[in-house]
């Protein structure tokens, strides 16, 4: 039985919110032992960001928190206290990776910068994920995913085209991009350590990883000095291309025609046969008229059947799946993408399986997100040999805790 790629790797995880936890979730699913460190006083706000009325210990029952934190262990440690910092530094030699996504100055303010971590373990792989990095004149700026998207050039490329307005992506797009990139950084750090024996410090800036996703726009800007043009849902390369309303409530289908053959097939279906035989340039010129035919056809169709009908004749088409019907998509269902993971306090619901399908190692969601501080004693006992007396001392100081202090603060 083949092991997962990160089997045997232990990660000290100081990340919170989305970007960092998305990275460490992937590390955990891919076999790493992830120790999620939270202070009883400064804990991952995602736990209570969406208020849930009338739920006991809501910080343990958040669907939002659970979505990003499966396959991790929860260890409480207040790093702002000297004793907490000391215990943390005793853990570092037992770990391979330290990862954090605080504001750029926070780790240094806690006295836990890379040099301190390196002194505790010479070959430590340290990954920081601040919005704008730890160097550079904009390092003091703060931001969440949408701010990252704006500051990386991404939002400037998105828009309907007729009003000059940029648009945000509907999710905090900078976060998961930084998260997946950080997993790549950890893997490269591990490869380097295996080859050279050296650790490293990765100063990932979320703004930079986001900007790598639109690299060709920088080529255009630097070679031709052109400002971004908004194409709405159209494309300079494919026509017709658009998103068309179908029957049902707020149901839409995306259609994108690459070739003359695909256009002739689409024209037949939407009743635009008087326009078949048009080449790309002619289809671009008549795009509004063509859209009229497609819109009138699509309005009478069921979105799923329309997609299947178009795909059957080779026309690229896909439903605009929403947050509800994506859970019932036949393709994702057949591939076992949605998984009901048991949880001690919550009714199981469908969560996404790893998108990395290693056919032999076969990564799976294995365990729900940990309860707050669930593994504090087990981990400190296993790695540092601590006993009941130690835990009593740490608990009395508030360095460890079984529930958050100020649980209402979000």
């Amino acid at each position: 039985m083949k092991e997962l790629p990160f089997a045997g790797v232990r990660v000290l995880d100081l990340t919170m919110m989305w970007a960092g936890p998305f990275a460490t979730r992937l590390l955990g699913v891919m076999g790493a032992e992830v120790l999620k460190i939270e202070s009883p006083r400064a804990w991952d706000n995602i736990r209570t960001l969406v208020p849930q009325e009338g739920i006991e210990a809501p910080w343990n029952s958040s669907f939002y928190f659970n979505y990003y934190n499966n396959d991790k262990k929860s260890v409480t440690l207040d790093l702002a206290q000297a004793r907490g910092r000391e215990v943390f530094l005793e853990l570092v030699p037992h770990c391979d990776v330290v990862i954090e996504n605080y504001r750029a100055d926070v780790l240094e303010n806690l006295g836990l910068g890379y040099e301190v971590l390196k002194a505790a373990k010479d070959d430590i792989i340290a990954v920081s994920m601040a919005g704008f990095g730890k160097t550079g004149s904009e390092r003091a700026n703060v931001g969440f995913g949408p701010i990252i998207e704006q500051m990386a050039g991404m939002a400037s490329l998105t828009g309907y085209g007729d009003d000059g307005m940029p648009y945000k992506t509907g999710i905090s797009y900078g976060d998961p991009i930084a998260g997946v990139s950080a997993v790549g950084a950890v893997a490269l750090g591990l490869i380097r350590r295996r080859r050279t024996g050296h650790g490293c410090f990765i100063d990932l800036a979320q703004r930079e990883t986001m900007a790598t996703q639109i690299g060709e726009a920088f080529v255009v800007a630097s070679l031709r000095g052109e400002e971004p043009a908004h194409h709405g849902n159209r494309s300079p390369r494919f026509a017709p291309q658009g998103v068309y309303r179908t029957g049902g409530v707020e149901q839409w289908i995306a259609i994108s025609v690459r070739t003359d053959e695909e256009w002739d097939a689409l024209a037949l279906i939407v009743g635009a046969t008087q326009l078949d035989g048009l080449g790309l340039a002619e289809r671009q010129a008549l795009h509004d008229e063509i859209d009229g035919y497609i819109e009138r056809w699509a309005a009478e169709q069921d979105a799923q059947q329309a997609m299947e009908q178009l795909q059957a004749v080779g026309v690229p088409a896909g439903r605009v799946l929403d947050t509800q019907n994506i859970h019932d998509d036949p393709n994702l269902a057949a591939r076992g993408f949605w998984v009901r993971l048991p949880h001690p306090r919550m009714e199981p619901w469908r969560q996404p399986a790893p998108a990395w399908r290693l056919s032999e190692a076969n990564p799976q969601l294995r365990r729900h997100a940990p309860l707050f501080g669930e593994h504090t004693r087990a981990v400190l006992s296993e790695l540092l040999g601590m006993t009941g007396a130690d835990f009593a001392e740490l608990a009395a100081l508030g360095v460890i805790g079984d529930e958050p202090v100020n649980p209402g603060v979000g």
Partner: protein
Amino acid sequence: MTDLVLDGVRVLELGGGIPAAFATRWMAGFGADVVRCEGPDGALTPEEEVYLLAGKRRVEASGAQLLELALRADILVEDGRPGHLARLGLAPGQLQKERPELVIVSITPFGQEGPYAAYAATNIVSFAMGGIMSLTGSPHRPPLVNGGSQAEYLGGLNAFAAAVSAYYGALVQGEGDWIDISLQECAAGMLELYASRTEYTGVGPHLRSGNHVSAVWGIYPCADGYAGVCCLGRQIPAFFRVVGDPELEEQRFVDPLERLANDDELQAKLYAWFADKRKRELLELGAAHKIPFGAVLTPGDLLENESLAERGFFDAVATPAGVARMPGRPFPGLPWRAGEFHGPGADTEAVLGEWLGVRA
């Protein structure tokens, strides 16, 4: 041996579109010998070629030579239709039998298997089927695809991270793997809180809300373009102090639930406040008061950005059309090389010589 992390690592890219080309782009920068075997013409625009192929060697090979190249690679990446490798005579099972440590990554819109495996897609179709599109755009207009080719880049990014992770696993365990990446799944697993909220609470689908999740989380027109703010509860007091409107101290704006109930009124106030602010002023206020302000910057703006220049973000690459500047190392901390841009097939002879010992 240089100090590049992937020095000596051989990567074969069976060229197609953005997903495979982006997956191997960072491998080249971090030192791997990335050989792109050309695919169909026109799969990439000239600008995409410059960005995605810099640092790679480009060959033309097929049949027995292609098989020989694949058997000398450490990592093989492709984004053809499902079953592409088998049709080329490179069935993953056969390759792994001869070379167990090989890491193979296949990227498709909907996965190697499943009812949509044969479906055709461009970026907008993959983006629609991954769920993010339903959340993007104005509520008064159709759902909107975001800029560039994000569904395809997302697949490439995941393929990169998965490939180097599996390569690390292969170094330790001696065995690679075949990784099936679906663009639909890459997106469907990152729907922020919206998918899990819909599924867990049964509230119905969350639909697009334009540029505002709420008044304190959105994009506003400003004096020299567009700017944004994204505040969590703990950052709102500092934000409201900077705005300086005494009404914002009233309970209806201070209490989180009442504030949401009065979101339209708050947005109106903030539209007015942002209207005469300049981007630079907002970014300075943000840094000074730890308020998450942003500015909508263009790639042209960023090419002139001091902070990115200080951090050495951009590579300069010579192309037939002049020197292009483009994002280079994704993160500092590991040695990186800005690659040269080669024309199609330019390296066939050199690569066949070095990898296969073939002399022209």
